[in-house]
């Protein structure tokens, strides 16, 4: 984004509230553990899983390297099949295009499915400003929308809510006096409500899991079938997709249709896999638009190391195994892309001058669990560290910009100097050892001042012993 980013809260600031919410932690912990275990089982069934991951990585990496060519090919194929292609440089442009299209149809409601990309650009709000209501039809998205909440997971946007909470919400918003909290009953209530909407909808808006350059085919995979309604019942269908969603050939589906469902919902295959190519007379939408969204993606593409971030197929496996996400939930990331993938994608899309976004690469212990499960082998820890490097470089360039980073910056510099010379290093050890005398009690430090108090608030610290290893070694040698 070219405009100066607004201040968004940092991960640390936001995480606090969620860490204290035990109900939320229990909801998320339970849900992620369930999906995590299921995923492992269905992945273990596949003897060629590693080969599939390699293939997924290879196709995506190749595509990113030739993205310009594949996008032009996609444009041509879509047009040939009777669809129209629109290019959007940023969120504003995309919203203008889409609201323009919807307004042209003279409707005040559009049904919408499966699109985090539209959340990324704030489409619902842009439509609302024009008096058009965008109705979420994915069950979880609907829950979040009715609650006036934000999604907290890529795939299970209402992961932070439990059944009882959903029942209360439906009773109120869908005017149900009696409703049990059985999943079937909740789903039925939503279904009855949505059916009416589908039958009257003139415009459908969808996201895309993939778009094939070779054929112009767009694909959405889902569990409920609502997406299929959205993409088939309205006269006009508008698909919004990030430019990274393109894949070269039809046969590439073979790889992704195996990798995606197993990694995301831990299913062997998604219950509904919808593919549509342009328009067909007398069948389905008679007008089809694809909006190809950049919104920072070409910038990501330009960074050789960060580029792999665009290989993501949004399966959310990394969220479900992330120990940080598990504790804080998705909202702490202040982005539609939470969890490990969000921690690398958001700062790259928004720019590292956004304070909130720049805090995200630090929201990880670098434990590597995300890399281990990623179906397209994105080395998330590597990218995290790479981005940390860019953040620090940026801060240094701007003269130590953020004052709270300054002590760290100075400390790191001093330590680097000390470590580069063993004599200086040994002197520093001695200084630290005598300096700690103020805080140590019988070999234990329970309270440290300033920045380091964050350690001792919950943990004791072992004091530096009287003899370092090297002092012992020297003595032994004598």
């Amino acid at each position: 984004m070219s405009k100066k980013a607004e201040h968004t809260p940092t991960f640390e600031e936001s995480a606090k509230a969620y860490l204290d919410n035990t109900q939320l932690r229990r909801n998320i912990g339970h849900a992620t553990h369930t999906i995590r275990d299921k995923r492992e089982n269905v992945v273990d069934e596949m003897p060629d899983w590693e080969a599939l991951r390699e293939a997924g990585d290879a196709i995506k990496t190749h595509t990113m390297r030739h993205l310009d060519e594949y996008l032009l090919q996609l444009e041509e194929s879509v047009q040939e099949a009777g669809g129209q292609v629109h290019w959007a440089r940023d969120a504003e442009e995309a919203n203008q295009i889409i609201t323009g299209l919807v307004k042209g149809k003279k409707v005040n409601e559009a049904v919408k499915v499966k699109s985090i990309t539209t959340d990324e650009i704030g489409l619902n709000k842009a439509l609302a400003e024009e008096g058009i209501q965008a109705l979420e039809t994915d069950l979880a998205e609907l829950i979040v929308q009715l609650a006036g909440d934000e999604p907290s997971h890529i795939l299970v946007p209402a992961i932070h809510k439990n059944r009882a909470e959903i029942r209360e919400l439906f009773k109120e918003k869908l005017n149900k006096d009696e409703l049990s909290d059985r999943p079937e009953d909740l789903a039925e209530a939503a279904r009855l409500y949505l059916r009416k909407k589908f039958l009257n909808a003139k415009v459908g808006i969808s996201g895309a899991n993939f778009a094939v350059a070779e054929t112009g085919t767009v694909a959405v995979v889902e569990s409920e079938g609502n997406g299929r309604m959205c993409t088939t019942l309205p006269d006009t269908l508008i698909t919004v997709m990030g430019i990274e969603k393109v894949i070269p050939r039809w046969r590439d589906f073979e790889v992704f249709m195996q990798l995606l469902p197993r990694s995301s919902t831990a299913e062997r295959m998604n219950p509904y896999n919808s593919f549509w190519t342009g328009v067909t007379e007398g069948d389905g939408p008679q007008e089809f638009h694809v909006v190809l969204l950049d919104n920072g993606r070409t910038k990501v593409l330009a960074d050789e190391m960060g580029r792999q971030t665009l290989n993501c197929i949004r399966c959310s496996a990394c969220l479900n195994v992330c120990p940080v996400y598990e504790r804080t939930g998705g909202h702490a990331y202040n982005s539609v892309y939470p969890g490990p993938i969000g921690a690398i994608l958001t700062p790259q899309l928004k720019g590292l001058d956004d304070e909130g976004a720049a805090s995200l690469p630090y929201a990880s212990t670098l434990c590597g669990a995300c890399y281990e499960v990623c179906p397209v082998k994105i080395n998330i820890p590597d990218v995290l560290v790479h981005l940390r490097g860019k953040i620090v470089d940026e801060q240094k360039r701007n003269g130590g910009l953020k004052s709270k980073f300054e002590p760290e910056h100075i400390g790191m510099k001093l330590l680097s100097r000390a470590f580069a010379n063993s004599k200086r290093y040994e002197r520093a050890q001695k200084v630290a050892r005598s300096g700690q005398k103020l805080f140590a009690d019988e070999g234990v430090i329970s309270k440290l001042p300033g920045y380091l108090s964050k350690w001792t608030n919950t943990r004791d610290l072992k004091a530096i012993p009287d003899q370092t290893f090297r002092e012992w070694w020297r003595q032994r040698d004598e």
Partner: protein
Amino acid sequence: MQISLFITCFNDTLFPETGRAMVQLLERLGHTVTFPMEQTCCGQMHYNTGYQEETIPLVRKFVDVFEGAEAIVAPSASCVGMVKEFYPKVADRADDKVLAGKVDKMIPRVFELSQFLVEELGVEDVGAYYPHRVTYHPTCHSLRMLDVGDAPVRLLRNVRGLELIELPDSEQCCGFGGTFAVKNAETSTAMLGDKMCNIKSTGAEVCTAADNSCLMHIGGGLQRQSSGVETVHLAEILASTE
């Protein structure tokens, strides 16, 4: 074999007993150990926190100190991971082909202790005696970066008197993560809380691992709770005798 000890700044300063245990253990197994006095720090903290420029002199230093060594062995999976995974990247950043060449040549000779014992020396029974109930926490870097697999567990199984109790959810990160423990202290503590619950549920007297950094975090939490469970580095258990 002639083994060069890479004790790491963290162990040198805070956990000298781990280094001493390594000396004892490797000598007992019949090897000659040396400790190149010029060594300081591998630069992991700098690198991981984003101070990659500051890591360059530390990498040069490390290479100077250990260049000629036959085997370089450290009691820290994360520092070994730093050398193996990231030194080539630092050399790239320094745009120094000579350094990159030296790093490439050195990497296959850098080992984490348990992996060195089991995979390089082919030893699983180091003749230790440690009559305690012990649970093992596989640290993330030993598990996912170095792929040490069950090397530590094999070694522990052969320690006489030791009762090894499996740690539930053992592969979950303890929440240390270097500067993460301070930058995101609350989240770190929440992760630590679950780790401690699992450790306590085993009824073990001792929790061990291949990294003193994670153990410092876990041990600091356990001590604050006066839990009575101690944290002890794997090297110290393996060095113990009757």
